[in-house]
């Protein structure tokens, strides 16, 4: 059984000291150990951003793709190699701006991968511009007088897209985040884990303290039912999305693999010459 050390690659992240992404890295490493994975059984697929550097900091297969396209890549990878544990990662710009269309369609397609979105309400890597998750009024290099576009509600979006698993974590809550990631990977379908992962350099508003003050754990909401979409949505609206925990899970919708039949008959990795009889059969179409 692999231990934490087996997932460390000794590369010093180029994240700023204090960046929320360190905790996500740690939680993910703990989670995969807890899940009993071996490093070679895991593939991390990342977008571009500070968060996008993630795959380079964990000892596992890793692919650092293009901005906003981690999910299409991850879905292709998973279908090609269903035994692999595929975890996609990215930032809020990556997943909610340029990648929003893919995020939405990946959610509804429900392929069995996990998507970890590091949500810092800002563009980190490009040095501090507004993100689609930035609060109204938030001042950045590109909104010097304050952001005027209503932020995207990741949770409403995910529910609208027909998500089957939505979790939300926070970099300061390492244990909860670890547990959430474990549950997400175990979920048989697409799982979204949105993590509030503060950017200490470019976001002086949505800081660790800010989140700590506002976040409510759904465990603390009496009668919270993660299976009732309507109710979950009302909680989300009421708390403006500032909830943590396993917010929603739907186990009745089958995964893409199941419904497509690939779960039973996936031979994509077998690259072989067609059997003579198969070849002959294919020829039939053209006579």
């Amino acid at each position, binding site marked *: 059984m692999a231990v934490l050390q087996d997932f460390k690659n000794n590369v010093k992240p180029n994240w700023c000291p204090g960046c929320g992404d360190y905790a996500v890295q740690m939680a993910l490493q703990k989670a995969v150990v807890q899940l009993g994975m071996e490093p070679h059984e895991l593939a991390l697929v990342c977008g571009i951003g500070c968060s996008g550097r993630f*795959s380079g900091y964990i000892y596992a297969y890793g692919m650092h793709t293009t901005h906003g396209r981690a999910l299409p*890549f991850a879905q*292709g*990878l998973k*279908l090609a190699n269903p035994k692999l544990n595929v975890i996609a990662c990215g930032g809020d710009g990556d997943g909610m701006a340029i990648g929003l269309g893919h995020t939405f369609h990946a959610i509804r397609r429900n392929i069995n991968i996990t998507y970890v979105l590091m949500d810092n309400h800002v563009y980190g890597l490009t040095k501090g511009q507004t993100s689609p998750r930035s609060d109204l009024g938030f001042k950045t290099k590109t909104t010097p007088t304050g952001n005027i576009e209503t932020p995207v509600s990741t949770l409403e979006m995910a529910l609208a897209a027909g998500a089957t698993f939505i979790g939300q974590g926070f970099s300061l809550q390492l244990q909860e985040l670890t547990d959430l990631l474990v549950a997400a990977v175990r979920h048989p379908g697409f799982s979204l884990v949105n993590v509030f992962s503060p950017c200490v350099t470019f976001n002086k508003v949505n800081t660790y303290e800010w989140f700590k003050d506002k976040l409510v754990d759904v465990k603390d909401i009496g009668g919270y039912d993660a299976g009732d979409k309507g109710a979950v949505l009302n909680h989300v609206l009421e708390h403006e999305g500032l909830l943590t925990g396993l917010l929603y899970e739907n186990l009745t919708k089958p995964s893409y693999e199941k419904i497509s039949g690939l779960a039973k008959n996936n031979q994509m*990795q077998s690259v072989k010459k067609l059997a003579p009889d198969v*070849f002959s059969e294919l020829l039939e179409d053209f006579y």
Partner: protein
Amino acid sequence: MKSREITWQAGGQQGEGLESLGEILASALNHLGYELYGFRQFSSRIKGGHTNYKLRIAAKAVGTIHKSCDLLIALDKDTMQNEALNIQEQGIILVDSILAQDYSGQARCVAIPFKDIAQKHGSQLQKNIAALGCTVAVLGLTEEDLEETLRKKFIAKGAEVVAENVAVLKAGIEYIKTEVPSLLGVLPLPELKHKEQHLFILGNEAMGFGALSAGAKFMAAYPITPASEVMEYMVKKARKLGGQMLQVEDEIAACTMATGAAYGGARAFTATSGPGLSLMSETIGLAAMTETPLVIVHSQRGGPSTGLPTKHEQSDVFAALYNTHGDTAKIVLSPSTIEEGFYDTFEAFNLAEEYQCPVIVLADLQLSLGKQTMLIPEYDKMEIRRGNIVEASSLPPIKAPEYFPRYSVAQTDGISGRIIPGTPNGICLGTGLEHDESGRPTEAKDMRIKQTEKRLQKMKTFLANYKKALAVDAPYSEADALVIGMTSTRSCIAEVVEILRQEGKKINHVQVRLLLPFPAKELEQYIRQAKKIIVVEHNATAQLAGLIRMHIEQCPHLENILQYDGDIMYTEQLLASCKEVL
């Protein structure tokens, strides 16, 4: 030519069943052993709008259609106004009786009540089958020659439907026999020397079939004319073989998913046209940088922008080669026949894995939508080569933080060992950033230089090894002219060259089948052997000629024959253009 072959044509409104009329006729003729080439022209609307289908029937292989035809079935006014003008002088027009017959040309024009014939024995929707009957009679065929094909075509709809169609067919034959007996067998089909079994296959299907034969089981794509048939073929076939075709949200997703699947060890591809390729450009760069074997089938149509979606053009050459920013190492093949469409697509997957890079199969609308008889692919020749994939068994144990040197720069050919993720003891990284030998991002100058040269070295290695860069028909060491073309102008040029040679001119012909890396050295030898160089292409900016000059120092003057009206090229016109230049 006339004595050796027949061109049959049918024109009418979209939705009048012209496509199946042509299909049934062709299928039957294929069984009889004829060589065929069929091409449909259509406009960008769903129902209505003129469409016409031409079928060339010959005893030896043919790869394009001519402008003129011998036998024309005219079901709408457009056909009479346009197509009828191109008919051979001794040709025959069978025109729907309900059309005003203001035809004033030379050919014999006979009004036939297709609808009535059909209605009497079935429904008026079957007037295409009535026309088929008349065709059969004029060509000197019998109902027996067609029956089996009709049965196959309609059996899914029940025996009754089959019977009805056969009845209409017979009635069509009977009509000619009784009402216009002078037409009976008046255009006999060419004599067949030997009878070989052929496929009759659409270019897009040939490419899809090539992919499937190469072991491709993953396709992600987005519908677009004229490439959709590739995905439509794959979706029908892939699942049974344990694969999947996904129609996804857009071309960016399609291309990226295919890249992900290719990274995952599947043979994976996408197919697209014009706008789709533009959208894929970023991902092509990712595949090049991460050395992932992505395959893209790209079928050119009229550009730029949405352009002429249902018309032919070859104006995406530069885009196929250069639409990605940066120094991108990739391969662009350009098949020039439907057969090459099959083999090149097959081979694309081998090359993509051997050279670990994106491979674009650059087709064009005529190649994609032309349908041709083709010899059955030789099973024994269909060799699968996966290149340097490092298997688990050959890997010594490693442990964190040690990585496998996926991007090793040690090899002089530029090709490093590739690992399929999931392989024990092979962990390594990948990134669109410049990286070190294990795939960790780096900005170190020496590594940057080495990795850049590694990627480009692969292309040099490939170019040195590849044997199919040119299709050469160059018998003259001192030629009057060399004609150079690419993609589907192959047959048209070949026919023109043949005619010119018969007229005593020494003409060489080279069809460029590899566009990137460009086979300059090989091509140059033919260029130096000719007094005149004529470059034939379907675009307004002479892209192929530009490429040739770009790669050949002291390049002599190139004459351009450019066509950009959306139509395909016809022998008659090309011959005239060549003569003008010669």
